């Protein structure tokens, strides 16, 4: 194997590592966003439920 091939392979290996770190971090951000949207949905549903209860005159939980 000549030195040029080795260089190219080394660089691709380094890039592969960098890309892996990137996609791992992006995955964490995706999870963070999913959690946030989930929380938003829950809050909206709670509010909707309490409004419906008010409209129907249901008291308590």
């Amino acid at each position: 194997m000549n030195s040029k091939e080795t260089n190219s392979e080394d660089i691709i290996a380094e890039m592969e590592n960098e890309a892996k770190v990137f996609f791992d971090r992006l995955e964490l951000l995706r999870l963070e966003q999913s959690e946030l949207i989930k929380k938003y949905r829950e809050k909206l549903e709670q509010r909707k439920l309490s409004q419906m209860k008010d409209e129907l005159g249901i008291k308590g939980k």
Partner: protein
Amino acid sequence: MSLESVRPSESAGEKDLSLERREEEDAPEFATEKIQDAEKKIDELIVGGQMQIDSIERSVNLPAEDLATVREEIGLLGRLETIGDKTSELLNGLKEKFLGLLLKKDNREASTKTGDTKQLNRGGVMESFTREKREIGNPVIEEARERWNQLMESRGLFQMSKVDFGTYFSSHEFDIRTDLKQQNIGDCYLVAAIHAMSQSPQFEMMVRDSMKKLSDGSWEVKMPLLNKDGKVVTIIPEEILPQQNKQFLRRGKAAEVMPDLRRKLAPVKAKEGLQVLEAAFIKQKFGSVDRLAAEGGYGEEALMAFGGDNFKEVHHPIFSEKHLKMVASAPEKTQAKVNEKKVELENFLRNFNPNVDIATANSNQKVSFTKKFKLFVPGHAYSILGVDSAKEVITLANPWNTSRPIKFTFGQFMEAFDDVTGVRIDNAKLLEKAEAPKKIQLCVALLLGRKTDCFIWSLPKFWKGAIVWIVLKRTL
């Protein structure tokens, strides 16, 4: 079984050639694919999130005020914006790392071909350069900086102390280096211009002459710097803080799919003095520190606003190999003009002198140029830090993070950039501006026995001497 394996056998020469080509393209191809993947994933994340939110809001069918209340309650938009910013940061980091790796590879290959380059240069445009190369090393620039500062200091022209300059401008102790990081507004041209200017030996002198921090925390900046007739721009502390984005969640142009997700528009991440320079340019141009209005512009415009008539504007278009091939079939007059411009640019680069030249370079707008430069930020301004004409290497800094300079060979530079814009410092003008204040001029006149309009001339010799002594003692 792959298609390749069932093809008829190729001749050895063809095989070697295709193999070599594949090896050469492997790393850039790989990098481009990964970046495209990364961009796709980011789009999926942002657009997917927005679609999910839209769908949830439609399904609950609550009034807009309720939606706004819940959004506010959990800080939805702010947190989404932070996630968006983080993805951009991650992508920029990945691009920079890939680019660094590719350039490292290219430089390694280029260094093995130095002999060939020398051969080519001997017979080519190099012959037109009669001017001797000047090696401007850091010690020379340091000395120039010191001399200018001593001159100005001795004439009592500074309104900012050296200590304050260190506090508000230098990013490192015992070092005049300035580090800047462009944030979420598109003013790369301005950040690159400020960074390029901060590399000049005259920068400290210009800043210390024309900028002043007041006791209430606000700043006075005389624009242009080091100019008697400069207009004073006042920057209050709030003007260098992040500001609300009026366009938040709005779609700018009709073609834009994504709304503007930036809730706040942040100033350049740098020492306070540099943030003030950014704000002063915007305020002077737009009447207020409207960061949205400052998006998109030209480096030389910013430099001229800072330097006024102390600077002379410089602009060199770059003709890549592709352009030159196209010009080959053009009329002779056009070819001559293009060659003239090419020689001018090479002259500028080979004689780039950080003592007098301040320049930025604008990267190619098109995405269709050589694959390896796809990682490079297109349509972006970079500051030029220096040129090593012997090795034919240009050092540039990306405004996203100026602390990590990038090296380009002349060939790479010509391919990746559209033009070099900047200024040349008029040192004669600067010296004029560095003239001594009136009181010192009066003392000199009295000492030399020249008649002046001032009443002191009519006083007895003893009193004249005493006044001169007091003034000089206080000033020098």
